[in-house]
């Protein structure tokens, strides 16, 4: 009994430790799966639209951009700065509040971009900052996106240091020359990183992000404790993007032994299961006195008691002269 309890405890401990290390990975993968589903719906909606409908959306976004005289962002991560107008939220609202998809190949970021609002604030999701240009594939744009870095897990789990989605965690690894891709409706807009800066949160308000005529820019902002990381990028033409990205387009192969290991693994697992079952079956044949279930124990005690009584009566009978 004691051995069984100890065994169960050990197994639970192993699961707990494995779970602790696997939680961030699995949580991030589940988050990516959810995001991937959202983007599939987005693309399905886009495919159903006619080209006139798409042009109309871009036209509205262009009008919005023209109405912006100056682009300045306050600290978008503060709770109080999250309220936006219904009018803003209706622009470029393709599906469920998602405007576009941000892909940064060099750091493995693939995230949907939401309208900034109280339900989707900048410190929980990647949002488009409402005071900046909407992606309209036009000239004179500075699209500002803001999102959190590593997201902590819910409640008690964050106390023990677990994290959920990785979001914009790798943004500080970007260097000038890296590419950033924004997929809007059916367009693919590619930007090249020009500069990465770290600012104090108050410094965001001082920054003037107004674009000049002919500028096509994308700016990314993320939190790093109480500082703000700013990445400024400029658009490159699609043919240049294709040439650059074509170099990364290749397939690599794991080593031969890794292939053999992977393909033989199911056999190994199945075999271990079979061995375990064999051990259990053989174990029955090997049962010794002092082991076994309670019923046998009671039976043995009964036998022992009877034997003693018998010996006792034999002795007492034998004593009788």
């Amino acid at each position, binding site marked *: 009994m004691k051995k069984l309890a100890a065994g169960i405890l050990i197994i639970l401990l192993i699961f707990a430790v494995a779970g602790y290390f696997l939680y961030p990975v699995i949580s991030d993968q589940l988050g990516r799966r959810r995001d991937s589903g959202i983007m599939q719906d987005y693309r399905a909606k886009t495919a159903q639209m006619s080209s006139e409908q798409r042009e109309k959306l871009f036209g509205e976004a262009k009008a919005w951009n023209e109405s912006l005289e100056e682009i300045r962002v306050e600290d978008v991560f503060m709770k109080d700065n999250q309220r936006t107008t219904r009018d803003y939220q209706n622009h470029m609202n393709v599906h469920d509040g998602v405007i576009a998809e941000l892909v940064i190949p060099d750091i493995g970021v693939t995230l949907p971009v939401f309208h900034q609002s109280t339900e989707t604030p900048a410190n929980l999701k990647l949002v488009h900052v409402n005071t900046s240009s909407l992606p309209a594939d036009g000239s004179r744009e500075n699209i500002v996106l803001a999102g959190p870095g590593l997201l902590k897990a819910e409640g008690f789990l964050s106390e023990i240091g677990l994290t959920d989605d990785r979001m914009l965690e790798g943004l500080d690894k970007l260097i000038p020359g890296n590419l950033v891709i924004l997929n809007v409706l059916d367009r693919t807009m590619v930007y090249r990183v020009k500069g990465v800066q770290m600012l104090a949160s108050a410094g965001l308000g001082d920054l003037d992000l107004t674009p000049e005529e002919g500028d096509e820019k994308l700016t990314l902002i993320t939190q790093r404790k109480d500082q703000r990381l700013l990445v400024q990028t400029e658009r490159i033409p699609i*043919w240049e993007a*294709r040439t650059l990205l074509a170099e*990364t*387009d290749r397939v*690599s192969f794991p080593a031969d032994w890794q*292939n053999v290991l992977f393909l033989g693994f199911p056999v190994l697992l199945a*075999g271990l299961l079979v061995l375990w079952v064999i051990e259990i079956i053989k174990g029955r044949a090997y049962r010794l006195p002092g082991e076994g279930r309670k019923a046998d124990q009671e039976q043995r005690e009964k036998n022992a008691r009877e*034997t003693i009584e018998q010996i006792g009566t034999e002795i007492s009978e034998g004593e009788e002269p």
Partner: protein
Amino acid sequence: MEIYHPRDEELLREMKRVRRSDRRKRLFRGLSILLILSFAVGLIVFHRYYQLAVTHGTAMGDTLPEGSLVLVRRPEAGQIYSAGDIILYEKRLAKPVELTILNAKGKTRRYCRYVLYRDVGTTRQYYVSSENGFSWIESVNGAEIFESTEEGTVSIGTENLKNGEYWLKEVQASYGQPLLTDPIPFAVVNPVKTQMKRVLAGPGERVVLSPYAETRVNSREISKTYTSGRTEDAAPEGRRLIMARDRYFVQGDQLSLSVDSRETDYSTVSEGEIIGRAEFALWPLQCFGNLTGVQTTIAGTETEAME
């Protein structure tokens, strides 16, 4: 309550010892058989049926993001791939070789005629091509003739030439010049890229690319359910082609960023270049699942006119 007897204790201990050693021997035998068996199975499956591959780059969009692990099935004899299959292939980007031929004094050889040959072991083979294909023949009679231009250059297309060393031999000089006796060596060094993209059309099918309309395969519009981006970014002018006997038209799922058969330089993939078909995606988890069975064309969109 138990009857205590000194000999019983010892017997019990001995029996436990025997049990333990029996178990150890059994496990040892079982595990070694199991390890050898799984290794053997892994080896057989790897050599004859499947292999693993990791994709990189953005060409396949969200279908296979950077660093996806897929299971690729090796081709069988006479394997044909259908539209919708994601195939793994080794593409040689065949750039033509341009040679400017000069004589000993440095003057260009204009309007001279050459044959192309290679040495395989001790045999010399001459190149000849026709509409049906190409071949290497042993005799110089019947070999293909390459003629140099007014500037003295010979342009040799390398789609059918594997990377390696080749020679040009002059067989006819012009203007009564003496024949150039030394053969002219040159190397074919085409970059080889191993890539994974989706088949849109196979041998004998028709593909029409147009900047004004959706891509059509055999007059049917292609489906956009699995793609992102737009074809205009990749093929700004229209194109129209019919697949040869052993050629496949491939396209990446991210239409704007993928360099694929829509470009004339990239061209189509020949059967000999195909390494296998990606059947199952293992990682990342959002892509986990079967990769086959995707319908690439929308039924009911056939039209009479093309473009």
